[in-house]
């Protein structure tokens, strides 16, 4: 039975390979290692955010504010850099991650302490965070020449032939694998999402774990704030607008159950890569730009149907089971 679960990820991996091969038929350069690396590099931010989002979804929540969080931290980091170019970039990255953490914690506290559904909380904070970007920057951009050389160049510096940006995502993946398998907190997140009542009975505080998940998601969004702004060498209010849906789509394609408790790091990464390959392939194979949105929509729908089919339990109709344990 375990192999069934693994199969889904294998299936996705196979799908990605087939997709890449098909693109390779049209443009041979697509399959060059250097290009594949570039595709991975381009998907790094999506991967990192999707992993944060996965934790949140595991606890039966959703974080719609990641993109706004990224925009806000990115803007703050960029403004700091342009105002104080002498401050070391790692310190700025830290500041961004911390700010992201705080923004995530705000979401988490509202969910934990006030019990407001996550979708409502993050629907609200998503507008608030992005609004604050506007207030802070007064609508102005921070442009490439206002950023210090190191600020812009660090993510593209190559270590062992691989850009730092890609390395960061590799490290995040490794940490997440460890966290979700080997750490008490990580396992408790699964337990809390799988059955909140049971978790409570076993002394696991569901709300606190939701808080933890939001905090991590916020922290990663803060990290991505820097990565994004330096990658595109520009910060403005609309940075990453609408990106939260891509992030959620990556999780969903990767088999993370929106009902909580189910999902793996590898699935999530594959989901993000799948979108990454599509995003990078469509412009290359010269698909009309007007087709791109419909294609990615169709892909999401198909992936989700495929997931649902492989997840379907045999024999019984199992409707959504309400958490109706007596008190």
């Amino acid at each position: 039975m375990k192999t069934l679960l693994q199969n889904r990820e294998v299936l996705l991996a196979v799908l990605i390979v087939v997709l890449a091969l098909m693109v390779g038929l049209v443009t041979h350069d697509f399959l060059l290692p250097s290009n594949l690396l570039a595709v991975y590099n381009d998907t790094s931010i999506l991967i990192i955010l999707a992993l944060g989002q996965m934790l949140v979804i595991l606890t039966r929540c959703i974080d719609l504010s990641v993109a706004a969080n990224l925009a806000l931290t990115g803007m703050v980091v960029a403004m700091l850099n342009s105002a104080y170019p002498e401050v070391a970039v790692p310190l700025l990255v830290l500041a961004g991650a911390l700010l992201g953490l705080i923004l995530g914690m705000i979401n988490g506290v509202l969910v934990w302490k006030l019990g407001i559904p996550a979708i409502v909380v993050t629907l609200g904070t998503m507008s608030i965070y992005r609004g604050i970007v506007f207030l802070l920057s007064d609508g102005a951009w921070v442009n490439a020449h206002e950023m210090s050389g190191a600020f812009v160049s660090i993510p593209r510096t190559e270590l062992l032939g691989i850009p730092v940006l890609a390395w960061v995502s590799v490290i995040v993946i490794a940490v997440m694998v460890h966290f979700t398998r080997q750490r008490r907190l990580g396992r408790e997140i699964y337990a809390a999402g799988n059955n909140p009542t049971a978790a409570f009975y076993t002394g696991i505080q569901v709300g606190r774990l939701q808080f933890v998940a939001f905090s991590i998601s916020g922290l990663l969004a803060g990290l991505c704030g820097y990565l994004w702004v330096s990658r595109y060498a520009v910060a403005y209010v609309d940075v990453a607008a609408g990106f939260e849906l891509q992030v959620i789509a990556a999780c969903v394609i990767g088999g993370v159950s929106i009902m909580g408790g189910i999902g793996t790091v590898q699935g999530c990464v594959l989901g993000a890569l799948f979108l990454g390959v599509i995003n990078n392939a469509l412009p290359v194979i010269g698909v009309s730009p007007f087709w791109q949105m419909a294609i990615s929509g169709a892909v999401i729908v198909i992936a989700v149907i495929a997931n649902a089919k492989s997840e379907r339990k045999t024999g019984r109709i199992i409707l959504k089971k309400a958490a109706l344990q007596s008190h």
Partner: protein
Amino acid sequence: DSVRIGLVVKALGIGFFEAANEGAQEAAKELGDAEVIYTGPTSTTAEGQIEVINSLIAQKVDAIAVSANDTDALVPILKKAQQRGIKVVSWDSGVAPEGRQVHLNPSSNSLIGEMNVKLADEALQATGSEKGDIAILSATPTSTNQNIWIEEMKKVLPQYPQLNLVATVYGDDLADKSYRETVGLLKSHPNLKVIVAPTSVGIVAAAQAVQDQGRIGEVFVTGLGLPSELAGHVDSGAVKSFAIWNPIDLGYAATMISYNLVKGESSDSAIGMGRIGTATLDAEGSAAMAEPFVYNASNVHAFADIF
């Protein structure tokens, strides 16, 4: 009573329009009895602009000067504004003639098209090639002015046989998408020499992508952008030269035109633009402000601090 003019932009938080507002405020100060209300929606949608225009109508402003997100969708609401006695001017990005009295083009569209092609030709020469492929990176497929300019460019292109237009792609005015589209162009057209991006978001992202792909010197980015946003990329060498009209002057002129319309100081064929001079209106009520100005390493930093 002072003349109240609503200056409606495509969206707040875009450097170009912030600069235009500066010009508008300058005009208001110069006029003495004018007040400019600078406003716009959160994102570049027609519905958002309609909301904003609705509230300007409610405030009974004397004139509305709008850079439209949609040529047609704003027509009904602007007609209503006119019915309520409000003068309507469109500037930068126009509204269909039924919806406004005057349209102020930053420059003539054909001139902009020509300028872009000329810049591309210069960039091609800078690569040292005689002939080469060029591509266009636009904003959203629906942006009015971008589409008009691209059309104008295509009209001029036959005069430049050395330029071979291979693709037109759309970055939707999103940094990440524009970046990815540029990378796609570089990959799928190995002989590409020039990318023309007549959009300020696109040109920045394209320049960054060219730099990241290590193609500086082989491929140049040009088009329309702001000196402040492109100074860094001129320094890096990804951009040799680019053009833009002065957004401050544009905001200034749009305000002056609105004021003069309210005061009734205009004829069917001409309308004053203050210090800029007098605009000549064509049969459809459009005017052009000035020629786009070209920026390169010699002057970009001087202007980067202004807009």
